[in-house]
């Protein structure tokens, strides 16, 4: 069975998010609790504020699967609902079949950290 992670609509005002870091690679097995990616949501385009309303989120797997392909790299700006990680239940399962459903994930707001692609070290 093939399933995928698309960029989730975390809050209604967002239209895009930036991939801050990816924790998985193709061929890797993930299980419940595996970190998949950290995202940056910047609502500046939707809100006129003197400082950017930026928040960070982590996507974590809630089920077992094998990572088969990743179509984004850290720093990429993705639109909501854009697919960026493809999974399968078996490691060698053919990918020429339709995506069955979304990957089961958890999303939570996180603090900025040094592993993110955006620079906040100063």
């Amino acid at each position, binding site marked *: 069975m093939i399933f995928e992670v698309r960029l989730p609509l975390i809050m209604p005002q967002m239209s895009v998010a930036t991939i801050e870091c990816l924790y998985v690679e193709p061929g890797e097995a993930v299980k*419940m609790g595996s970190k998949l990616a950290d995202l940056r949501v910047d609502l500046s385009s939707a809100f006129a504020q003197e400082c950017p*309303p930026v928040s960070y989120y982590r996507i974590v797997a809630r089920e077992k699967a094998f990572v088969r392909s990743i179509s984004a790299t850290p720093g990429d700006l993705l639109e909501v609902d854009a697919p960026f990680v493809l999974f399968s239940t078996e490691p060698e399962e053919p990918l020429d079949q339709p995506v069955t459903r979304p990957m089961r994930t*958890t999303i939570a*707001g996180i603090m900025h950290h040094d592993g993110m692609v955006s620079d906040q070290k100063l």
Partner: protein
Amino acid sequence: MTLLPLTLGPLEASGYSLLRSGVRWLVADGQYCEAHQPIGYFNVSLEATGKVTGQPEFADEMELQVAIAPRIGGRLKLGDGLARGGYLSIRTIEEWRAGDVIGQLEMEETPEDERAGELRALMLAGRRMTALADVHTGLMPGWHSRTRGWWADGAEKPVTLLCQGVCDAVGVVSGSQTAFTEMFAMEQQATQMVYVPDHPIAPCAPILLDQITRTPSQFQAILEDAHAYFGGLSNAPTPNDWMFMGATLQALGSAPLKDNYPVFTPSGMQHLGAPQAVLMSLAVEPLAILRHKKLGYYMHVMRHHQAAAGPAVKSWLSQEFEVVKRPVEAIGKDYEALIDRLAKTSGTKVIALNRMSTSGHEDISSYMGFDAPLSATLSNVAAKEMNLVLDDIADTRRLDVIDIDAIGAELGGAEHLPDGIHQSGTLQTIARQAVLECLQDVRV
């Protein structure tokens, strides 16, 4: 239907005469106006009536304005000829005279209060970040290192609130026009609101503590150290470097919590001491802060402000400073140290806005995938722990906590606090009322 003449009230500054520009209206002729809503403003200046010894009052505040508001609501008929236009509405050209009629208010019945037509005055003063930042349009225009607004009737002495917060506090205090107009409309008792911007150095507790304990010789050492660093660079700093460093050194050399304030009022000039209360934001407290390797002072520049720095300043920050982790307990200790220091010196009360600790945008079914300690990983856990620390401090020290977390949850965080810090107008109004209630016990 009756027409109530709207007149300027008395304003006096002992030793000075008060001059004003032509009026610049904030409303249109015929517009309905709420009570206490500013309808126009003047630029003003103080001209010494005799010999001045020392620095004249307000010499460091090049923006000086008075906004005016009716005490009761009604439809406005603006006076002819008062908006002089051009530079005559910018330069101060006439003496401020109490009783001058500037318009009329159309009302159903004549009010009984004989002062009903006397306009309330909101005095505004801005200290420019640089004297070059002269902008002639609008209320409190330009780039300021400090702005303030005050109001008083008769001989009342204003109580001062200093805002040293970030966006969650600034919007509450400065309001939509960044000229304290909402606070002015909400509070009729004599009050002064002071705002110091959160850039380039963000006002977290260790920064404020540094500012009030730094001696002149320590500041001189900072100046000399910066001079040595930038003077020794092989590549010349860029204009952005110079401007960023100018503002940074200006902030390092100031201590808003120790400032004194001259104010002109209806009863004459008054001199106000250190603020009775300071409003802070828990949201500005970082979990890691920079500390100068040699001189030991702290530096916290928010990420979106770092973009203003040139390459030389970025190198200076990364080479001359070290990163110091601040777990939640350390943030609490910094708050305690600041509160204790203020209690021993100026007596300034600390009011703090806590953090929104839920977002509604999460669906955590398991904490696997989030490294321990959770307060260093999950923003909502960090916010909850910091809020708890703040509550613990309030049990033992003079600290008022405004519960943004509860207000946001009550109103609906997704609608009124979508990113956890930038509030809706409704939430700001509630927080504004809460701030004013916190000021009640510092009024004499």
